């Protein structure tokens, strides 16, 4: 065992994790090598420092309030029926009120069916003129409307509250969400469902509706239980941002080890194939990503006859121009031409946004 190998095993040795032959080798080496003895002392000190410091740092942690709200909301969702059914949970008064509000605001309640999802289908929304994304003053006489213009932005997603209506029996919040794929978001109520909390306690949601989609902005109205006189509420939106794209890429496999000219999925959040080589019946494809989103990828390789091959994806490695990922497929013999079909599910995962609302009138 030389000093380099000894260095590799020093930490586990000092912790008593090394056994058998490895332990004996290292013990013997340490007995004769002054440099490694010195190294062992330094390593012992470093390990101790690391353990103490990391544990201390962790023990002092505090969970940010927005994460606390989110955890409580998530657990609450676990203990009760899913969002589409919440409409039915509201009181008859609240339900009637909501319907009245929507009739006034949109002119039509949209193509939603009773008992079905509260969301207007995307096709219904885009086919008829969308109402203004900033709704202005609702015309119901039952609550006090307070215009708001507060936003919270994170990871390219913005939540903007445009108005709050404080009623005796309800709180209606109008808000818009931008920066997400509206077509996908509108099919996923959880992505646009805000949680209204007062003093850390979430208020029951009576009803909600995505009223409009325009230029990638989703406008939502949600009606909750009353905030309470003089109380301040926070609207929090844990949303998931996901986009999917699929595009075939034709690759001239015949060129062997010569890099192909960049081609492939679109450049906005997409991937480009930068190199292709055939080695021991294995096709290696190098992919460069330089877009603006975080992506999960699934790929298949297809030959001219339509035969598909599984593609194994390696870990993404950061590089000077973006992230590269090596894809490998096992192909017997020369196959040409080959088409690589990539499917990217681009996901920003969860985005946590929170907007403070004005206090309810006394």
């Amino acid at each position: 065992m030389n000093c380099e190998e000894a260095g590799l095993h020093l930490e586990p040795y000092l912790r008593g994790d090394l056994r058998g032959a490895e332990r004996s080798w290292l013990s013997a080496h340490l007995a004769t090598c002054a440099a490694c003895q010195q190294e062992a002392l330094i390593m012992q000190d470093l390990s101790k420092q690391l353990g103490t410091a990391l544990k201390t740092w962790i023990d002092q942690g505090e969970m940010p309030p927005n994460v606390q709200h989110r955890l409580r909301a998530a657990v609450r969702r676990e203990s009760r029926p899913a969002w589409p059914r919440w409409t039915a949970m509201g009181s008859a008064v609240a339900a009637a009120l909501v319907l009245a509000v929507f009739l006034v605001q949109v002119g039509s309640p949209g193509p939603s069916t009773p008992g079905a999802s509260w969301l207007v289908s995307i096709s219904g929304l885009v086919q008829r003129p969308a109402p203004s994304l900033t709704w202005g003053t609702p015309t119901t006489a039952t609550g006090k409307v307070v215009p708001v213009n507060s936003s919270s932005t994170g990871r390219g997603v913005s939540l903007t509250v445009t108005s709050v209506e404080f009623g005796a029996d309800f709180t209606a919040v109008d808000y818009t969400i931008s920066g997400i794929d509206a077509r996908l978001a509108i099919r996923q109520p959880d992505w646009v469902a805000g949680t209204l909390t007062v003093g850390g306690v979430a208020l029951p949601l009576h009803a909600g509706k995505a009223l409009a989609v325009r230029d990638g902005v989703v406008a939502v109205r949600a009606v909750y239980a009353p905030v309470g006189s003089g109380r301040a509420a926070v609207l929090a939106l844990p949303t998931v941002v996901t986009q999917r794209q699929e595009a075939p890429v034709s690759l001239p496999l015949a060129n062997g080890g010569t890099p192909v000219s960049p081609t492939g999925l679109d450049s906005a959040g997409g991937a480009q194939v930068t190199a292709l080589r055939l080695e021991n019946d294995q096709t290696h494809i190098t992919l460069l990503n330089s877009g603006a989103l975080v992506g999960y990828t699934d790929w298949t390789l297809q030959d001219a006859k339509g035969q598909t091959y599984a593609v194994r994806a390696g870990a993404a490695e950061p590089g000077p121009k973006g992230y590269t990922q090596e894809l490998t497929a096992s192909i017997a013999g020369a196959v040409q031409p080959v088409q690589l079909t990539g499917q990217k599910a681009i996901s920003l995962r969860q985005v946590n946004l929170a907007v403070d609302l004005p206090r309810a009138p006394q």
Partner: protein
Amino acid sequence: MSESEEYFFSLLKPEQGKLYRTAWAILGNEADASDALQEAVIRAYRNFGQLKGGALAFPYWVRRIVVNQCSQVLRRRKRVIPVEHPEDLKEEAASAPEEPGADIWEAVAKLDDRHRAVVVLRFAEDKSLEDIARALDIPLGTVKSRLHTALKQLRAHITDNHAERRGAG
């Protein structure tokens, strides 16, 4: 809030700050830590009835769920191509410098995913090398080499910091 929710959160509350930082330390940023924590807490709540040992056992039990969830996220990350400009995603890496342990955490936070996770599991969670290999789904030899590389980098960073402080003092 139901009684079971109340009880669950009363046990979670004293632990939540530590759990949050554990997830942050393993995953390297607060956004992913929040995601993982949410998944872990839901899982814990679902299985709350199976907790043996009551309130005393809760801290260890829930911590194990959080660490497992974070390890799962790291395993999944192998498939992820983070094409977002990394600087846009960068969270504040360290807490206030006065906080005890923050200087070392700052150095650990600068390690890349692969090295940081091994260091945190090893020194904050006291996992054996075999456990780390299993948790991250990597060979034992890779754990050793990552640990070795990470310690070399940390040593250089900590030495530099001490030298700077001495220089500044």
